[in-house]
């Protein structure tokens, strides 16, 4: 595999970064050998400003089985004043920042797919469409993870939500990983 150390540089030229179907244009140097683009503090500052001014434009559309949608509404009773948009963003954040970080938690969460609750949820053919606002940072993270696990973005989101709803539905005896997961979800939801 190419282990380019980017020794041959092009001068500044316009670059395009695509997030959620939108384009951020910026000036940066690139490597003549491999085409890599050098992201630096200036690009970072400009990108943050671009995200700030465009944050209302990024939407996530997907559908979930009816039972998952109902499960989300039930869980939301724990967090007065929040919406399903908050919950979707919180769940995606917890998966990408915490669940995937720990092989033990990740395996335990994924094991819920063997539960009757999960199987009943995904067996339901009636579906509910959902559309939530999402910040471009999280959207790009979700797009990348979806590609890494060979799923479409809507399927990835659906899978995260279904696993969490199934976990709440199969709540049994407390365990370290489940308590940790609850704590993380609580933190993100209460910060919403």
């Amino acid at each position, binding site marked *: 595999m190419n282990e*380019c150390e*980017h*020794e041959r540089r092009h001068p500044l030229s316009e670059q395009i970064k695509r997030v959620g179907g939108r384009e951020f244009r910026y000036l940066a140097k690139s490597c003549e050998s491999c085409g890599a683009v050098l*992201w630096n503090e200036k690009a970072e500052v400009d990108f943050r400003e671009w995200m700030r001014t465009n944050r209302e434009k990024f939407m996530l559309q997907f559908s979930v089985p009816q039972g998952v949608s109902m499960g989300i509404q039930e869980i939301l009773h724990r967090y007065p004043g929040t919406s399903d948009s908050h919950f979707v963003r919180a769940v995606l954040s917890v998966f990408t920042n915490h669940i995937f970080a720990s*092989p033990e938690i*990740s395996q335990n969460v994924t094991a819920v797919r063997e539960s009757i609750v999960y199987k009943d949820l995904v067996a339901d053919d009636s579906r509910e469409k959902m559309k939530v606002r999402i910040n471009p*940072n999280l959207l790009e993270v979700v797009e990348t993870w979806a590609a890494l*696990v060979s799923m*479409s973005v809507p399927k990835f989101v659906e*899978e995260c939500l279904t696993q969490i709803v199934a976990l709440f539905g199969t709540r049994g005896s407390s365990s370290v990983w489940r308590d940790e997961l609850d704590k993380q979800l609580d933190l993100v939801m209460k910060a919403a």
Partner: protein
Amino acid sequence: MTEPSSERHERLSDPTLPFAAKLKLAVSFELEYWEDRQHPPNISVNVFRSIVQLVPDSIAPKWRERKSVAGAHGHSGEEQIFNFDFSVSAFSKDVRFYCKGYFFEKGNLKGVTIQSFRPMPSAAVIPIRGER
């Protein structure tokens, strides 16, 4: 983060600081990142910032002498380059990442340059219903 340069250096050059903690701290201070490489593709800088937080505390990188002087810190960065790989588990899929870079500035540490950050060929996957 807006810590004074001397404080950044003091924290990043702490010999008791494990490598993973040093890397995460350097990323939070100042990051120079090569992205959009096509062969093989690097993961975007935004996603790198998220995934680097998943690097295990116990990671032990390999070190070798750096050849490249490209980038804003190419001449002033540390002469040793690090590389390591680590894996995370996502939906029963083992996703492995490769990372290569160096810290800067030599003698006055304040950030890190990442030359490569990309997923590596992966292992077995347990299929999920409806998966593409």
